[in-house]
């Protein structure tokens, strides 16, 4: 049967050569190559669940009086968007499951990208020829964060209202174009009668289309360049070692998709997320107590709290206080991320070569130390985003907690750098015979390679 279909297709597209290559395509077996796949499959789940939500969501800021099956909100003035999400959660079959799966999948999507990025960084997989894919990947991270923010901003609840006001202030603070950008994105103020429709358009169309297009490019480049290999016997710059796409890798990968789906489905059913009926509808005069953004924006929220209350005046120009922690700091973080392959190139000896065998983190003490330090800094910023909650839990004043976190923001990365650097040096030092295991070139494979290259 597959013969018949294959012949039918081949007589129209001439696919036999490509098909053979595709079936034989080799994927490495190391678990850390699955991190990117988890991100990919989370995105697939986001699209699937998002399509279902789209059937029931009403992206409108019109005010209505709620009269529905959730009695606690009966008679409350809400937006159409909020009403439709409450309806979706209580009256649509599997609506709450799909909505919670969508939210969990978004959290896991960004998390998987971040962990995947760390794997790439610490093993120097971004090196030539994979710089383009690093740049695409960093862009995907930014888009994922942005779309996650848009997603939890559209239901018109009290928590999203706080996030919207803060985002409006952040956009407003951008020099020259800020007021116009904020006006375009949100309308004349927050809340406005146009913001949900605008954010929704971005959330379900433009940003997902960009993510999908970049994902295709990301995967296409991986297909073209093959994956990297961890160092080991037979792992050279001239070959790729692992399982074939058909059937082993196919089974494993579809299996992984099912497991990711199962995990997110179970979370969606068992673990409540973003219960907007408890938060209540947005009310511009009120704020959700101890409001926190979704985890991937915690570092920006934290930076806003850590940054001292100063702004800059240059003549009549104002650089508002939120510009520094919430615009320039994230821009700086992403600029550094984008620059990683090019900074690395300056310091690495064989920068002109193709790199297909990964480095172990311990082989690059400086890069590993700096990466750990940068990550630690963002973790401190993340916790600073909850400084009021920490203060309540610790029974201390917010001022004290914030002072300690400001110190930690610099001390923790420094200590992390020293520890991780020394750990790498120590891992490298005592066993020179172990080094032999990680030598990249192995004479016994070159003969095989010479034969296959002529093919």
């Amino acid at each position, binding site marked *: *049967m597959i013969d018949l279909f294959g012949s039918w297709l081949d007589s129209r597209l001439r696919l036999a050569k490509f098909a*053979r290559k595709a079936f034989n395509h*080799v994927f490495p077996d190391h678990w850390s190559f699955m991190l990117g796949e988890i991100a990919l499959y989370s995105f697939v789940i986001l699209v699937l669940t998002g399509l279902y939500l789209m059937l029931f969501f009403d992206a409108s800021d019109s005010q209505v009086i709620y009269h529905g099956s959730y009695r606690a909100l009966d008679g409350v003035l809400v937006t159409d968007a909020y009403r439709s999400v409450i309806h979706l959660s209580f009256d649509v*079959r*599997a609506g709450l*499951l799909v909505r919670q799966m969508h939210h969990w999948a978004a959290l896991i999507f960004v998390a998987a990208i971040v962990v995947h990025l760390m794997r790439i960084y610490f093993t120097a997989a971004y090196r030539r*020829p994979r710089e383009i894919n690093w740049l695409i990947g960093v862009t995907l991270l930014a888009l994922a964060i942005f779309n996650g923010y848009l997603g939890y901003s559209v239901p018109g609840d009290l928590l999203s209202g*706080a996030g919207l006001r*803060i985002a*409006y*202030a*952040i956009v407003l*603070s*951008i020099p*020259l174009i*800020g*007021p116009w950008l904020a006006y*375009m994105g949100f309308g*004349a*103020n*927050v*809340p406005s009668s146009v913001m949900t429709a605008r954010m929704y358009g971005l959330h379900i169309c433009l940003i997902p289309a960009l993510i999908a297009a970049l994902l295709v490019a990301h995967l296409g480049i991986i297909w073209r360049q093959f994956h990297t290999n961890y160092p080991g016997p037979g792992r050279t710059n001239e070959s790729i*070692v*692992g*399982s*074939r796409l058909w059937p*082993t890798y196919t*089974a*494993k990968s*579809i*299996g*992984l998709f*099912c*497991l990711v*789906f*199962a995990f997110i489905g*179970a979370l*969606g*059913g068992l673990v409540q997320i973003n219960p907007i009926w408890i938060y209540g509808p947005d009310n*511009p*005069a*009120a*704020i959700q*107590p101890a*409001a926190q953004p979704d985890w991937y924006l915690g570092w920006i929220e934290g930076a806003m*709290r850590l*940054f001292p*209350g100063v702004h800059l*005046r240059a003549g*009549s120009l*104002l650089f*508002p*206080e*939120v510009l520094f922690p919430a615009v320039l700091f994230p821009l700086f973080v992403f600029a550094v991320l984008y620059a990683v392959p090019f900074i690395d190139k300056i310091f690495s000896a064989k920068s002109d070569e193709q790199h297909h065998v990964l480095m172990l983190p311990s082989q690059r003490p400086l890069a590993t130390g700096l990466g750990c330090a940068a990550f630690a800094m963002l973790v401190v910023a993340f916790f600073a985003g909850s*400084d*009021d909650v920490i203060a309540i839990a610790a029974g201390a004043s*917010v*001022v004290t907690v*914030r002072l300690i976190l400001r110190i930690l923001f610099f001390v923790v990365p420094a200590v992390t750098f020293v520890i991780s650097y020394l750990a790498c040096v120590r891992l490298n030092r005592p066993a020179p015979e172990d080094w032999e295991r990680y030598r990249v070139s192995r004479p016994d*494979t070159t003969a095989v390679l010479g034969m296959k290259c002529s093919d």
Partner: protein
Amino acid sequence: MSPRPEDHNRTLRGLTVDTISAVKELFKRTTRDISTAGRGAAAASQQAAPPPTILAKSGRAEDRSIGQPARSDGLRTFAVVVAFLCAVGGGIGFLYVFWSGGTNLLLGVTVGISFGALGCGLVLWAHLLMEQREATEPREPLLSPRDEREDAFASYAAGEHQVQRRKLLVGLSTLVAGTFAAVVVSMVRAFGKDPYLALLGTVWKRGQGLMTLQGKHMTVNSLRVGDTMTVFPPNRIGSVHAQTVLIRVNPEFLQLPKNRANWAPGGYVAYSRVCTHAGCPVGEYEDTTNLLLCPCHQSTFNVLNGGVPTGGPAARNLPQLPLYVDSDGTLRAAGDFSAPPGPGFWNLPPTADPGRGEP
């Protein structure tokens, strides 16, 4: 080309026969799988190996075997069968819960079971029943051979020659592109007139009464010392931008700047309720310290001395609203806020406010 009817029939018949025989073969193999349980591992692994001709053609003949079959194939197949049956069971469970209008919790559990079992089954199939072979494929050099590059460049140059000759047309194309860019950019006008009208425009006018959300006027007797009320201009009740917090403090404690000495009749002070840091409502008033607290980032503003920020990330004063009391005791605005309310932007005019961040 379209096949003749009899061809079509033959193909169809062939297809049906093929399908039936394939199903039969599958059934035979499955039963054989289970019946070989307990037989030697060597027999099982022989069974799994494809015919030598196919192996040679596939280019996989040299794949290195890395996994040794330890237990019998039958037991392994049984494990995968159990997993797949669990997946079917979970799916049926989901259908039952869904159609009977069951809880979200049960829906999640059944989704988890069905997909979890299916995923486990597939991974087990790959690990237990497929050949554990390590394949090695050569990487093609990513840089094209020199002649291919030269040919590509020549093809480009052959066309470029024709384009570059027409300097005028190339220049005009750039102009057209620039015009289109200007058209696209100018379409931001569709969003409205001008954001600055809202950002810098007047919020309060002299003589406007302070109204509550319920539309009641505030008078000198409306609040006790230490109490607060959110008020609006009469024409903008409920407005986010115009929301104002009215507080009654002990007038003896007031330390307002000299030019604001008469802004707080009877100890009534009024400030913009929009935080100058990130725009959250500055709703919490602590009367022991006379501070307004923003719940978002914990900025605090002193209401006694003109809304100066005393802590947290805010740098600019809360804009103050000058007040007066008219002949019948109603509280009214004596003018607009001391500065445009809300978070800062690049051309927010400097004020004479005694703010922390102001030079």
